[in-house]
């Protein structure tokens, strides 16, 4: 029995893990450049989930969703949510962070927490006004499962989340490593003032970082709504925390670290959730899976404070 659920547990873990990974990218990219933890990033993810769900709900009520190819529908939903959250991220940076760039570090952090609350309340308010409730059920585009023989099967929507997350991460990797602006982004992360001597507009690179990180977060929101069905204005908090944990686990500031940290965390969590209860005879059930995830994080940080793939912290000269 334990083994027969393994494929589904792995798919669940990977689904969750890839979502953590893509959201973690937003934390890690911004940190890499500004050494600032954008606590509002979890809420960007949440806004993406709501924008995507609203797009689907509205097109459903207009009758355009029926008969549309679900892949096309998902693609369009993703694009709209990514544009919306990308723009939102840029706006937040411009309004809430940039004016504080030379302030002590704690100040923009507080500002970010303020933005988090603001976004939660704005979404709650808007939905309550428009729909009389702020819990939304997303129309599901994909259902069904792939049988793997016996009574083992894996869900299609999980596979779709994983495949899309991999595509997004691959695209980001190409951008950062192969394009002119991607190289400029890495240069700004290493040495802003020297980057500006190369004719690089540092403010523009920072904007681009928020644009990309936020649109990735928004896209993950859409995938989350598809995978879990129900969303509320507070889903960004826990998922954001976990994604941030994943970024730290991989080594904050390190893009590849965030990807691997996310997947690892998701897998560990799913495995812990499924097997901890049976293996401990019910002493520690699935409800301890979060504790388990954070215990792993603490262990890793005890032995490798810079994270699995981070570099030892050097004081900037």
């Amino acid at each position, binding site marked *: 029995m334990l083994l027969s659920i393994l494929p589904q547990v792995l798919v669940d873990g990977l689904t969750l893990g890839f979502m953590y990974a893509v959201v973690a990218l937003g934390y890690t990219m911004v940190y890499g450049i500004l050494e600032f933890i954008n606590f509002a990033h979890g809420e960007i993810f949440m806004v993406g989930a709501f924008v995507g769900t609203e797009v689907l709900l509205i097109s459903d009520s207009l009758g355009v969703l029926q008969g549309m190819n679900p892949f096309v529908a998902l693609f369009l939903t993703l694009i709209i949510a990514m544009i919306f959250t990308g723009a939102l991220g840029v706006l937040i940076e411009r309004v809430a962070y940039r004016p504080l760039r030379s302030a002590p570090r704690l100040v923009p952090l507080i500002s970010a927490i303020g933005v988090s609350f603001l976004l939660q309340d704005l979404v709650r308010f808007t939905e309550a006004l428009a729909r009389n409730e702020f819990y939304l059920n997303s129309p599901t585009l994909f259902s069904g499962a792939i049988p793997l023989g016996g009574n083992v099967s894996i869900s299609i929507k999980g596979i779709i989340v994983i495949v899309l997350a991999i595509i997004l991460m691959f695209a980001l990797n190409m951008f950062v490593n192969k394009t*002119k602006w991607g*190289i*400029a982004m*890495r*240069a700004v992360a*290493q*040495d802003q*003032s*020297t*980057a*500006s*001597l*190369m*004719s*690089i*507009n*540092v403010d523009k690179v920072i904007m681009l970082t928020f644009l990309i990180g936020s649109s990735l977060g928004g896209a993950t929101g859409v995938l989350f709504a598809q995978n879990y069905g129900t969303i509320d204005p507070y889903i960004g908090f826990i998922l954001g925390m976990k994604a941030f944990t994943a970024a730290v686990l991989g080594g904050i500031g390190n893009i590849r670290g965030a990807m691997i940290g996310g997947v690892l965390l998701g897998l560990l969590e799913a495995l812990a959730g499924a097997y901890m209860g049976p293996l401990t005879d019910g002493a520690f059930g699935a409800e301890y899976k979060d504790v388990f995830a954070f215990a792993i994080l603490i262990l890793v940080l005890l032995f490798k404070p810079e994270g699995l793939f981070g570099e030892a912290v050097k004081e900037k000269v």
Partner: protein
Amino acid sequence: MALLELQNVHTYYGGIHALKGISLTVEKGEVVTLIGSNGAGKSTTLKTICGQTRAREGKVFLNGQEITAMKPHEIARLGIAHVPEGRRIFPKLTVRENLELGAFSVQDKRTIQEGVERAFAYFPRLKERFNQKGGTMSGGEQQMLAIARGLMMKPKILMLDEPSMGLAPILVEQIFDIVNELNKEGMTILLVEQNANQALSVASRGYVIQTGEIILKDDARSLLANPQVREAYLA
């Protein structure tokens, strides 16, 4: 009209008055050197030219256009290449990527490729190290990369801040040879050095800066012969 002109520039770091009315000019095709001891304000002068620190008073002109209040990336785009003190190459980027960033403002792919070829001609070591991370190279190689990176934008003027610092004598020799060679090809250079002897032997004119003020300016040969300079900077 001078290619680069500073008029009575004052720069502060908070309450520290680092530049107290610097005026200097660099004509097209010249090598001009700015010499002075530690803390005199040499780097601050270059940083003020390229916008990294702001002149609170006074003006900076490039080709007659005032650039005093522009941002560093805008000034760089106008054709001022600054090879900063301590090289400041991007350690986690490869040599190739460092060079490509030097040409960030250049749109034409062919021009960039030609720039890379030129860098290889000047600094053959960079060709061997092309795909290696900048931070893994020796100090001398990093200095070569920093200069090569500065040249990638085909600048109107190249500003070098103590390029010989921390290098073995043979490498110092090489760096000054390259300054000479670049100048023969028409490059205008503003060279900051503590190594006054070498700097004055490649420059046509020189300025001596002391605690934020220009205390002497003359053609390089006269400065080399000047007893005051000999005592303070060539001893």
